[in-house]
């Protein structure tokens, strides 16, 4: 029996299909999931996801933000804020987002009240960088 991957975001389902295996960016390091993986709950950080399709189809890449993953015997459910498949990423937009966030971060004083904004910008930069990275990876 194949493995079933579902990527769910608050704005809807981003991916749902039967797959061979998936590599996910866990907070404790990247890890791969194959069929009959042990039941697992863990957190993800912004990073690339490599999806190997069923029947030896070519790898597909996607960029996810931070979130969580629940692995059971035959289901992998990824809960993230955003997920974009490599083919849908516009590298120019991602680059622009990164530059804007970096610019604002530089202009931000070290004051304590800016802490939340600073964390947000750092996260935005990390996400944009992942997108730029993933955009370059075609299904090779």
């Amino acid at each position, binding site marked *: 029996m194949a493995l079933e991957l579902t990527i769910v*975001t*608050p704005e809807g389902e981003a991916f749902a299909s039967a797959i061979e295996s998936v590599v996910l960016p866990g907070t404790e390091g990247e890890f791969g999931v194959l069929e009959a993986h042990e039941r697992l709950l863990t957190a993800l950080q912004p990073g690339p996801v490599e999806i190997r399709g069923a029947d030896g189809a070519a790898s597909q890449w996607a960029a996810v933000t931070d979130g969580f993953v629940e692995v059971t015997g035959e289901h992998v459910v990824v809960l993230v804020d955003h997920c974009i498949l490599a083919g849908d990423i516009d590298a120019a937009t991602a680059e622009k987002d990164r530059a804007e966030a970096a610019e604002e971060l530089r202009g931000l004083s070290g004051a304590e009240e800016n802490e*939340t904004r600073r964390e947000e910008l750092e996260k935005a930069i990390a996400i944009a960088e992942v997108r730029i990275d993933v955009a370059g990876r075609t299904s090779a």
Partner: protein
Amino acid sequence: MPNLRDIRRRISSVEKTQQITSAMRMVAAAKLRRAQESIEAARPYAERMRNTLSEVAASQTDAAHPLLVRRESVEKVEFVVVTSDRGLAGAFNANVLKRAEAMMKKCLAAGQTLEITTAGRKASEHYRRHRPDQLVESYELGGWISYDQAAHIGRRIIHRYEAGEVDEVVLVYSEFVSILTQRPVSHVLVPLAAAESAELVETAETSDLPPHEIEPDAEKLLALMAPTAVEVALYRALLENQAGEHAARMTAMENATRNTKDLIERLTLEFNRARQAAITSELVEIVTGAQAVE
């Protein structure tokens, strides 16, 4: 005698109003459909998040996360009041504001101090006038609700809560019950409601599957998940508010269109009467004129 031209001018002005209200009704109907789809799209994520959170919370009983624990004394309450940006939606915003005001009075009577965060321009305008000292932050919703907006607001609320600036956060918004009914509701957003956490633990225990392996550990995972749960609750409130706004506007504009129809009917009647009166008096003049000549 009413002037014929004046009446005709009024009729055409009401007709123009009717065009606007019926166009707004149709726009609201289209937006409502999209808003309802957003609510549907958000549901699977919210449900899965809830299940996962309940499992993690249940597996970890010793040191509960601060966002899940009720503080012993609640001195400062933050109100997050959600309304729409724009009016012309009947009593939609007024109902939420009334509900919020009643809750605030209760808190003040209990000797608690208030802080207000608003989402939606209508709420901001209201509190800028009525409670300018307690209004700490206000957000506009802009065109269409995105999860990032909810996360943005949520992070600031959590930050204030964790820093001890507030002891409780109450969310007031309109629940989208149906197209005809939007109900103002309020519930405690942070700490994640006590009743709910009890229920969370219960549902987790009834599951007969073996528990998941949790990495790195339940405490750390819970620390990451609890803020997300707050953001999801906020996102849901914003979506319900959005759908409710369009539904309320649709109903309001439907009524307005109906009123313009009645008004046009009445004015047309009046116009015809005036026209006939004019013809009659003209005839009388001609007849009297003819009789005078004889």
